[in-house]
């Protein structure tokens, strides 16, 4: 645990992007406008983005910002683990899909009724093949989050972890708060207190 650092933190909510608690972008408009603008800045031309559901878009775009100045060395790709939680699972998309059953149900929508598909999207883009865990909990709870982190660090060969909370309720209420943790010593050691002090719940 002493050998792990918090490399980067990205919070995307309500049109605002905070990187390590610093406001970097403030975009007016609904989620579609916000995500499209951020895509153009951080991941222009990534066509698969447009077929994603909103939860995946939210997590994906935050991961692109997270990794933008902190690329993971390719030789570590098999050791990049994920630990993402939220409270809504994919309810927003579930409703969309449920409505579509009445006409022609779409397989392209159906796959996004699984929350771990969001992790899959980030893995697909970056060829990350480490362990994945998606959990659902009523609220973000630092003790629960920390417990998952420590158990993951102790018992797997991961060298990097992308972890956090990605929750999409509707176009106005959404939050992606994700971290990159890596092995090695950096200014900010990976501790529960250091996460707590940086985690913003909106």
């Amino acid at each position, binding site marked *: 645990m002493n050998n792990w650092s918090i490399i980067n933190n990205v919070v995307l909510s309500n049109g605002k992007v905070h990187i390590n608690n610093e406001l970097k972008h403030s975009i007016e408009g609904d989620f579609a406008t916000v995500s499209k603008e951020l895509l153009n800045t951080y991941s222009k031309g990534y066509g698969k983005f447009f077929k994603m559901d909103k939860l995946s878009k939210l997590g994906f775009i935050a991961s692109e910002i997270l990794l933008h100045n902190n690329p993971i060395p390719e030789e570590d*790709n*098999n050791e990049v683990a*994920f630990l993402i939680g939220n409270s809504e*699972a994919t*309810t927003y998309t*579930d409703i969309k*899909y*449920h409505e579509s*059953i009445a006409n*022609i*149900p*779409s*397989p392209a929508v*159906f*796959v996004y*009724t*699984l*929350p*771990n*598909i*969001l*992790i*899959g*999207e980030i*893995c*697909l883009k*970056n*060829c*990350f*093949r*480490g*362990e*994945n*865990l*998606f*959990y*659902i*909990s*009523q609220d973000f709870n630092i003790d*629960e989050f920390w*417990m998952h982190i*420590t*158990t993951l660090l*102790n*018992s797997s*060969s991961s060298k990097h972890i992308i972890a956090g909370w990605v929750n999409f309720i509707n176009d106005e209420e959404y939050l992606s708060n994700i971290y990159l943790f890596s092995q090695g010593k950096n200014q900010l050691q990976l501790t529960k207190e250091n996460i707590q002090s940086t985690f913003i719940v909106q």
Partner: protein
Amino acid sequence: MQFDKDKKVFVTGIGIISAIGTNAKETLSSLEHKKHGISQISHIKTIHKDELKVGEIKLTNAEIKERLNLQGDNTYPRTTLLAIHAAKEAYEDAGLKRNDGFKTGVILGTTVGGMDKSEVVYKNIGEDLSFIDSHHCGYTTERVADFLGAHDFVSSLSTACSSGVNAILLGARLIKHGILDRAIVGGTDALSKFTINGFRTLMILHTEHSCPFDKNRKGLNLGEGAGIIVLESEKSLNGKKVYCELTGYANNNDAFHQTASSPDGLGPYLSMKNALEMSGLKPCEIDYINVHGTGTDNNDVTEGLAMIKLFDGKVPKFSSTKAFTGHALGGAGGIESVFSILAIEHDMIFPNLNFKEAIPEINLIPVTETIKNAGVKNVMTNSFGFGGNDSTLIFSKV
């Protein structure tokens, strides 16, 4: 919290309900005698009724409630009822008692949650809002925890079809950390219109009985059920009967496609390899693999290629049991873990139904008749899910 990687995790109880039985005993008998549970849909009103075959549990919700003495409570969706049924069996099988001083948690995987109920009630929204509470994936786990009085750690996992295996993986990890002394873990999912339509639009449903690992496989049959096991550390064993030890587990992402495996099965290869490394076993020591084997074109060939690579061409005896039960999605990992434990307990390898001809690309022939006295000491079981989520467990005879 003290992590001890050498701490052993034992299986002390099993519970199962699926299309081939409502308990472990019935299930074993069906597996042994090649009695499958694939039929037409009877519980769900769907226009696809006549064109699909599924692994349906013939008990109605009311009948399951009656077995569990839950009369009067109408809010449980089927996913929850199946989980309580299997959890109760596992709990009693392990001889557990409430408040015995050992830290006991419940971790379950599910993909569909209370959808089976929501999709029926949703249309008449305003009359009955109870479905809102029971819709989410965590509901089932909470009800199981309440039913058993086990609240030291309660969590739900949703990682598509590998959810059940990942719940077992997490439970084992919590025990190794001393966070729990025992974990009631596994997976559950009920059939619903939501999933039937979803898989149908993906065009991976076979209209007839599926034939995993066969050259002419045309897709999967959906199923339903729950498989739940009790994991315990040495501390709480107290001389009780142990089925086997969970010696290896791993999860990896395939990073190729949301609903298809990479052409060479890299994700499945990594999860099998990492679980094997953790177990400390040599590849030749694996006696049986209960494969994911959905019967889709893509899964069986890529899983086969991954096995050929890992075992250097000498693939152990293997079978897919999905032609017995259908693919129970989030329940599958729990159900097939119970099958793997039964294989060790009864020294038996279960057949892969409907196999006729090997897939040319891999030329692998599964076990097609029940093998008794098979010398089963170490069993590997695979569960792969959408999103590239690949998991493997290894159970070993103690």
